[in-house]
């Protein structure tokens, strides 16, 4: 009834190729963004801002990055944690060396640095595929973590090998990192930043580059025959994916925990992001957000659930139950909808179109 595209005519190609060709989608996304920007800050407690929304946005960014590589270009990567560490440590080195440069520029520069690292570790993808490539990227993971752990230079010779986010302002007194940053500042900055980056990613995957990635993903020999250079497609996917993941790592270290050691980017982090895009939906920007929400929010929700339902339970019981239920839900979702939450949303839209008179 409400979700119907009848009567929305496209009279130009530009209109037909819009990101959200249906008016309801466009308004819906805009409404969600405005709600997050204007309403949430007034109602969310610091717990919500600090521990739920900030990590969710950071992980959404990482998931977009990995989705570009794995979901769109079909190159399986287990190096996400290592690339996140690159972003975090590059940002730390740059911002302590050049405190006068704006932190956003620093984060973008760290992203470019990570992109270079990504290209270097993406080179094997020109020769190997699938599981073998996953193992090759695993090497990146271990090498990078080893490098950041073993070289005290990366942490400015901190005796414990930990980097701490120094206070940096976006402009004036609007601090977004360090002790002076309020949760609200961090949240607002992240929201806008991630929204812009998601928009860029969405446009990228619709461009010629994005189509080249998808062609390589679907069948690389066929793609080569129709004139797509696999080398360019694969390496650009590695570069742009690493760019996003590096930024996510910088945001994780600077905005969420505010202090990290290389251990925070262990291989489990790579798996976490990989699960996000598998559950959220491979090859979907929306899926990156949904997957991040599922992996980040659900465990927190589960561990809060007994208290909310008024059940008194021992701490270890809650922790173990959380693992069990979370695991069961992952299996359940993958059985019910192997194409991820994004596909589920798509099906829901199909149904909504005909609601309330399905045929």
């Amino acid at each position: 009834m409400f979700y119907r595209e009848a009567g929305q005519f496209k009279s130009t190609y530009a209109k037909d190729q819009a990101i959200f060709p249906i008016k309801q989608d466009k308004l819906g996304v805009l409404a969600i963004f405005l709600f997050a920007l204007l309403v949430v800050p007034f109602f969310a407690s610091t717990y919500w801002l600090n521990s739920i929304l900030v990590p969710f946005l950071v992980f959404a960014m990482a998931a977009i990055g990995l989705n570009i590589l794995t979901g769109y270009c079909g190159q399986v990567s287990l190096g996400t944690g290592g690339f996140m560490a690159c972003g975090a440590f590059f940002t730390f080195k740059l911002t302590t060396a050049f405190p006068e440069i704006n932190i956003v520029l620093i984060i973008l520069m760290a992203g470019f640095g990570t992109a270079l690292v990504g290209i270097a570790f993406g080179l094997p993808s020109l020769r190997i595929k699938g599981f073998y490539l996953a193992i090759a990227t695993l090497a990146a993971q271990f090498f990078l973590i080893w490098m950041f752990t073993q070289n005290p230079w990366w942490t400015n010779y901190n005796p414990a090998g930990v980097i701490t986010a120094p206070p940096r302002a976006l402009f004036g007194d609007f601090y977004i990192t360090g002790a002076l940053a309020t949760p609200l500042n961090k949240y607002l900055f992240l929201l806008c930043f991630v929204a812009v980056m998601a928009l860029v990613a969405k446009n990228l995957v619709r461009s010629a580059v994005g189509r080249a990635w998808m062609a390589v993903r679907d069948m690389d020999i066929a793609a080569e025959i129709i004139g797509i250079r696999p080398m360019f497609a694969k390496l650009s996917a590695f570069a742009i994916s690493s760019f996003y993941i590096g930024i996510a790592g910088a945001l994780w270290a600077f905005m969420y925990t505010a202090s990290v050691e290389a251990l925070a980017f262990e291989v489990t982090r790579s798996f976490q992001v990989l699960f996000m895009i598998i559950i959220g939906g491979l090859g979907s920007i929306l899926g990156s957000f949904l997957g991040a929400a599922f992996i980040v929010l659900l465990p927190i929700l589960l561990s809060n659930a007994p208290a909310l339902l008024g059940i008194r339970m021992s701490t270890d019981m809650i922790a173990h139950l959380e693992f069990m239920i979370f695991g069961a839900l992952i299996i359940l979702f993958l059985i019910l909808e192997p194409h991820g939450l994004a596909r589920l949303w798509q099906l829901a839209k199909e149904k909504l179109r005909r609601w309330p008179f399905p045929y």
Partner: protein
Amino acid sequence: MISRAFLVITAGAAVLSSSLWSIPSEAQEAQFFPGLQYRSGPYAPNGIPFANGYADYLEMLNARDGGINGVRIHYEECDTAYNNDRGVECYERLKRAGPSEPASWSPLSTGITYALIERVAADKAPLLTMGYGRADASDGRVFKWVFTAPITYWAGADAIIQYIQEQEGGSLAGKKIALVHHDSAYGREPISTMQRLAGEEGFELSLFPVTHPGLEQTATWRQIGRQLRPDWVVMWGWGVMNSTAVQEAAAVNFPMDRFIGVWWSGAEQDVLPAGTRAAGYKSLGFHAPGADFAAHQDILRYVYDAGKGWGDRSGVGQVLYNRGLLNAVLAVEAVRTAQARYGNRALTGEEVRWGMENLEITNERWAEMGLPGFAREIKLTCEDHEGGGQAFVQQWDGQSWNIISDWIQPRNEALRPAYEASALQYATENRIEIRDCAAEE
């Protein structure tokens, strides 16, 4: 089918999340003690006894004295699984979950400590990192909200080297010492001090990082036992890494009495898996093991006899249990000190911080609490958030831990400048104003 499942789940999530928004704020006259503990995850075997000791002591005070000077204690736990992200989430969750502001925080993890240092400063709550965390936080002029009492890792490294020096008859020149450490912020803390001492005393230091969680040590110990053959091995381990190391050391026939762990590598859980071969293994300690104290008897009587114990009765008095208890004692005594100034009511974090900074526990006070000789006298000041810093060496005889050395006083004349230099670097990087202790009363 699919849409129904989807709807049920989203509806459930919506209901739960809407109730998450509102956090109950009942005004009760109870002091909130948050517990960042871990009863799950790879470090749970060590986290559980610590958490039990902490919780049982608070429970006992409630049952025996009706709280602290009549102010009841409200204790709540969150399971961090020794995971930094989770620890931060738990901190944010608990900080407004109690009937009053949190009295103090003790995450029992160096990694979580690092993540909390800025948060507690912003939220104005004291952070008590008892024998872990940032050593340079002993400089209270920079780290106003962080307390390292009773001892830091740097002091612990100094104490171990002093002990080895004494065993070697005074000189360490030409000796080989290996440091087997957890490859994390925790395990790397002592390295700088050990390296400095290696230069000063002329011993040769070899580092053996062990990756989390520490089950893979065969190669490390083969190298130690067959190739390097050090005179002494020092260990900075935690959790399953400890018991693995003790077993591996036994497997390469490394002499156990030349193997010393830090205080986190010296509990029953660490030596029991190796059986009789662990006998002789040493570790540092800063409080007595065992349950032969009046306070422990009170715990057994008021908590366990009433069926309210957090753990198993047999666990009372274990090394890590006593460490949790000591942590609770320090936190409670800080509240008591602050109550003397602000009145017997639920205090704010800021007030408890004052109490902690002016904390003084004399031997008489230890005896009064039913813990005579349990730990050293502690006196904290604005400059010195460590206060004392003595440790002893204890040895496992196959049955129990026994104290085998006197209290060792770390050489603060060298450590203190190191704390100050490191704290100063932190202050400049993070633009922290250095407190003028003389100006504050």
